[in-house]
C-alpha cells in the first residue's frame, strides 16, 4: 500500500514527490507529539534537563509541555508511581484525548524499580494502562529519553490507517475506558487491570516447573 522506496527515490530525482495519505497523516502526528507535564520523581528532573538547552527535546517538536491532559498526546510517566498516586495517573490517562501514547520512563515506572519492596509502590504502571515505550534506567540519561522518543515516533509512523493493525483510536472496538483502581483498606482494588496486563498462568505445580509458561 505504501509507495515502494526505490520508485519513490527515482521519482524524487526527477523532482516528483509521491506520498500516501497514511504517511502524510502519520508524518504530521509524529512530529508534533505534545507531552503532558507529568513529573513524579527523579526521572522528572532528567526529563526537564532533556527539554533544556543542552539536550533540547524541541528538535523533535515536543518542547510544548501541556499541563492539561486535554491538550496532550503523550504521557511521560517519569518516576515512581505509588499506590496513592495510581488512581490519579489512570484517571489522567483516561482524560487525555485519543491518539494518546505512554512512555514509562525509568525503572520505577516499568516495574517499581529499586523501591519494589515498598508497600506503597505500584509494581509498574503496565498493570493499569497500556505502555508504548519503556525506557530503562534509574534515572535514564537524557539521551536515553531522546532515543525512547524516537522509538515512539517510529511506532507512530508505522501505524496504518485502516485494516487490522490500525491504532486504538481508529477502531470502534478498541478499549477506550481503563477503570480507575480504588484505594482499599490494605491495597489497591483491583491490584491489576486483567485486560491490560494479562497475567501469564504460572507453570503448573505438579509437573516439573518447565521454563515456558503455558496459557
Amino acid at each position, binding site marked *: 500500500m505504501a509507495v515502494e522506496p526505490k520508485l519513490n527515490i527515482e521519482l524524487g530525482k526527477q523532482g516528483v514527490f509521491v506520498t500516501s495519505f497514511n504517511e502524510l497523516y502519520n508524518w504530521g502526528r509524529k512530529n508534533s507529539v505534545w507531552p503532558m507535564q507529568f513529573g513524579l520523581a527523579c526521572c522528572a528532573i532528567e526529563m526537564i534537563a532533556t527539554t533544556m538547552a543542552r539536550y533540547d527535546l524541541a528538535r523533535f517538536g515536543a518542547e510544548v509541555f501541556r499541563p492539561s491532559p486535554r491538550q496532550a498526546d503523550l504521557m511521560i510517566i517519569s518516576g515512581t508511581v505509588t*499506590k*496513592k498516586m495510581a488512581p490519579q495517573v489512570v484517571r489522567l490517562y483516561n482524560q487525555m484525548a485519543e491518539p494518546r501514547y505512554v512512555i514509562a520512563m525509568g525503572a520505577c515506572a516499568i516495574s517499581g524499580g529499586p523501591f519494589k*519492596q515498598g*508497600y*506503597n509502590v505500584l*509494581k509498574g504502571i503496565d498493570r493499569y494502562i497500556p505502555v508504548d515505550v519503556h525506557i530503562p534506567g534509574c534515572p535514564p540519561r537524557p539521551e536515553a529519553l531522546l532515543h525512547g522518543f524516537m522509538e515512539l515516533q517510529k511506532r507512530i509512523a508505522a501505524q496504518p490507517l485502516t485494516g487490522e493493525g490500525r491504532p486504538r483510536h481508529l477502531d470502534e472496538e478498541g478499549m477506550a475506558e481503563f477503570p480507575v483502581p480504588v*484505594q*482499599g*483498606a*490494605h*491495597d*489497591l482494588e483491583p*491490584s*491489576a487491570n486483567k485486560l491490560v496486563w494479562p*497475567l*501469564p*498462568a*504460572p*507453570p*503448573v*505445580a505438579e509437573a516439573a*516447573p518447565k521454563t515456558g*509458561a503455558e496459557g
Partner: protein
Amino acid sequence: MKTAEELLVAIQAALPDARVELLLNPSVSAQHSIVVAPADALQVAVYLREVEGLDYCSNVTGVDWPGKEIAEKVKVTKLVAGVETEVEETVKRREPGCLEAVYHLFSMRNSKEGAQTPIVLRQRTGNRTDDVKVPSLTPVWRSADFQEREVFDLFGIVFEGHHDLRRLLMWDEFEDHPMRRDYVDPDDYEWEPTAHDEVLKRAQAQAAGVAE
C-alpha cells in the same frame, strides 16, 4: 549546653513529681536519652523549652519495640533426687512491647559554644494494642506537627492534643500501620513473567488456589 545527665538532675529538681529516667546509649556517639512518662511529658517539654532554652525540636520519630521472649537463667532451688540443690533454669519471660516517640531537641538561640549533641526525649506507650495514647508536643514545638502525624500514620501512636491528627503519608482509607515490625505488606508481586524460586512457589500456590 547541658548534657543529658545534667538535664535529668535539673528536671528532677524543678519538677519533683515528674517520672523521668536516663537511658544510656551504648554507641560511641554517646547521645543518651531521657525517658519521660507520658502523663507529665507536656510539663517536662514546657520546662525544657522555657527554662533550658531548647527551643528547636529537630526530629520526631517513632520506634516500634515488639514484645520479646526473654529466656533468662534463673537460680532455682529444686528437689533433685531428694537433695536441695541450686539448679540453672531458663525461664521464658514475655516482655510486653511498646511504641516509642523520640524527640531530638537542640537550642538555636544559644548555639555558639561547640558542637551540639541532641537532647533525646523519649515517650513510651503502655503497650502496642489498645493503650497507645501519648500527649502531643505540637503546642510546645510546632515542628512536631507533621512529624507526629507521620508517626501516627506509620506507627499508630495516637497523639492527644494534636490540632489536626490525620494520616500524613498513606491514603485515609488505609487501616494498618505499615512501619510496625509485624506488618505484612500485601502480596502483589504476583508472578513476574519469569517466575523463579519463592515467587514461583507463591504463584503456583495462588494458581492452585484459583484452580479449585
